[in-house]
């Protein structure tokens, strides 16, 4: 039995559940954190989403059928939780998602947990101008270096569409950086 299958079995067993869950968290925490952080921008939000994601994984592990990879399933939960938080924040503040993003970016310079230079800030601005899905694809490919196949599993989109989306995103970002 391979590692993932063993981990799954332990996660679903009463006896080994907690230890297996710790193992899973150790395996995924950093990757998931950065995936989430790229979407929600602030550390505090990323921390909330990451913890909620793990709690959701723990609660729903029994419903994981194994028809996709554990990895894809986990990332999918993290992605959905991130977007849900953004939508919730926008709704609470009675502003659009775009406006929320804009305000998040404008807060970066004063954010203790952002020490990017001017170019890095401009890059964040450029990314925030993209459509939401394109942002996801760009972040996953550019910052996290995920394979197209994995991104396709997570976002449930074809690889071809993702490649096209990514190349378009790169072009738009480059144009933005050049203009600004």
């Amino acid at each position, binding site marked *: 039995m391979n590692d993932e299958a063993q981990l799954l079995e332990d996660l679903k067993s009463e006896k080994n559940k*907690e230890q297996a*869950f*710790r193992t899973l*968290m*150790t395996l995924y*925490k*950093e990757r998931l*954190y*950065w995936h989430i*952080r*790229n979407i929600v*921008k602030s*550390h505090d939000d990323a*921390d909330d989403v*990451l*913890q909620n994601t*793990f*709690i959701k994984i*723990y609660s729903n592990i029994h419903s994981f059928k194994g028809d996709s990879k554990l990895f894809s399933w986990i990332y999918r939960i993290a992605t959905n939780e991130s977007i849900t938080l953004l939508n919730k924040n926008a709704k609470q503040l009675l502003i659009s998602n775009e406006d929320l993003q804009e305000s998040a970016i404008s807060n*970066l310079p004063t954010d203790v*947990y*952002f*020490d*990017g*230079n001017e*170019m*890095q*800030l401009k*890059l*964040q601005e450029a990314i925030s101008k993209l459509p939401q899905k394109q942002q996801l694809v760009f972040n996953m490919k*550019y*910052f996290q270096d995920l394979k197209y196949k994995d991104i396709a599993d997570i976002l449930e989109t074809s690889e071809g569409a993702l490649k096209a989306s990514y*190349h378009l995103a*790169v*072009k738009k*970002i*480059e144009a933005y*950086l050049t203009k600004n």
Partner: protein
Amino acid sequence: MSDTLKNIKNAGFKVPNDYFESLEDTVLSQMKLKSIGDSGFKVPNGYFESLEDTVISKISKNENTKVINIFTRRNLLYISSIAATILLLFNLSVFNKKSVSFETLETVTVENYIMNEYIGSYDMASLLTDEDIVDENFIEHNFSEENIENYILNNIDIEYYFSEYK
């Protein structure tokens, strides 16, 4: 080399349209971006080290949450007052399906009603249809002359009618 092999010149691989045309652009863009470095996002010291413990303790807390007792005094009070209200309504005629129809009314009741309420002659008349007034209402009584004479003599002031000065 075999003949077959000599004839296979092309490996059979294909490239997407415009692949080479856009390649330079794509690679250059990527390189420019890569020169920017990472995202600039930072994480608090020790954040990842304590994460597992934080999450596990949250899960334990969720599992040990106090079960809220629905049978509190306040709830029982609400429930019993609602039940009492419903019972009361069932006993009132509001819920009685027995409807009042004309047939169930006693004649006396109707007569009393007509006598006590002022039902003007116009109201009464509006209830009458042409059909109500039938010939039978003006029954042809075969009054005997004698009875008629008696009636006239006893009930009518004949002097008045014979008087010249009316």
